[in-house]
């Protein structure tokens, strides 16, 4: 009995259609799995173990998909937080510069401070989103 590559391809297609997300550490693991499969290809006499291994790897892919989704979520959240922090820091620097130039009690400076603080506060910003 041979490897059911059609079924494996169908499964891969379903991963792709579902977005088959993401990567990072999971990708490294996937690469290691592929290397393992390729190494087994060299040892052609143990076809049965290759077949078992391939089947297991595809099943493992399914589990990796879930992990990749989590990794993707973390990466996106980190990118959003980093962008928000960069904007807040910049607004804050503008605030300080304006304050130094125009003296205390400056309205625009106060506005920047408020904006920077608000942007750092996720809840405040999210309330403004639909």
């Amino acid at each position, binding site marked *: 009995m041979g490897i059911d590559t059609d079924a*494996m391809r169908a499964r891969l297609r379903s991963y792709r259609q579902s977005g088959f997300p993401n990567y990072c550490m999971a990708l490294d693991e996937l690469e290691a799995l592929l290397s393992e499969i390729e190494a087994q290809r060299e040892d052609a006499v143990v076809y049965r173990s290759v077949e078992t291994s391939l089947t297991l790897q595809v099943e493992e892919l399914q589990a990796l998909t879930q992990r990749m989704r989590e990794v993707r979520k973390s990466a996106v959240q980190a990118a959003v937080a980093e962008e928000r922090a*960069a904007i807040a820091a910049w607004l804050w620097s503008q605030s300080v510069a304006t304050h130094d130039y125009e003296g205390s009690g400056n309205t625009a400076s*106060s506005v920047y401070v408020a904006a920077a603080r608000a942007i750092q506060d996720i809840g405040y910003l999210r309330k403004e989103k639909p």
Partner: protein
Amino acid sequence: MTDAEAGNIGRLLAELSAEMAHMREAHAVDVARAAAEERAAVVAWLRKEAVSHRRDGFPIAAYTMQERADAIERGEHRREEEP
């Protein structure tokens, strides 16, 4: 292992490799899009605040806030990080 079976495995490996490349590209796009959306949300929020300040009788504050929103939209908050 027959040649046909070896060929099937080879095709499957090629498909997995292509899938990995696809994932890498999609990941980069996801992260870039998320940051851009966040920036757009902040800019929209600042502009909305500027409108409020103008309406409340603080035109200078409104003007400067609008100016900062425009600057952030242009990415100036990132340019200062560049060496």
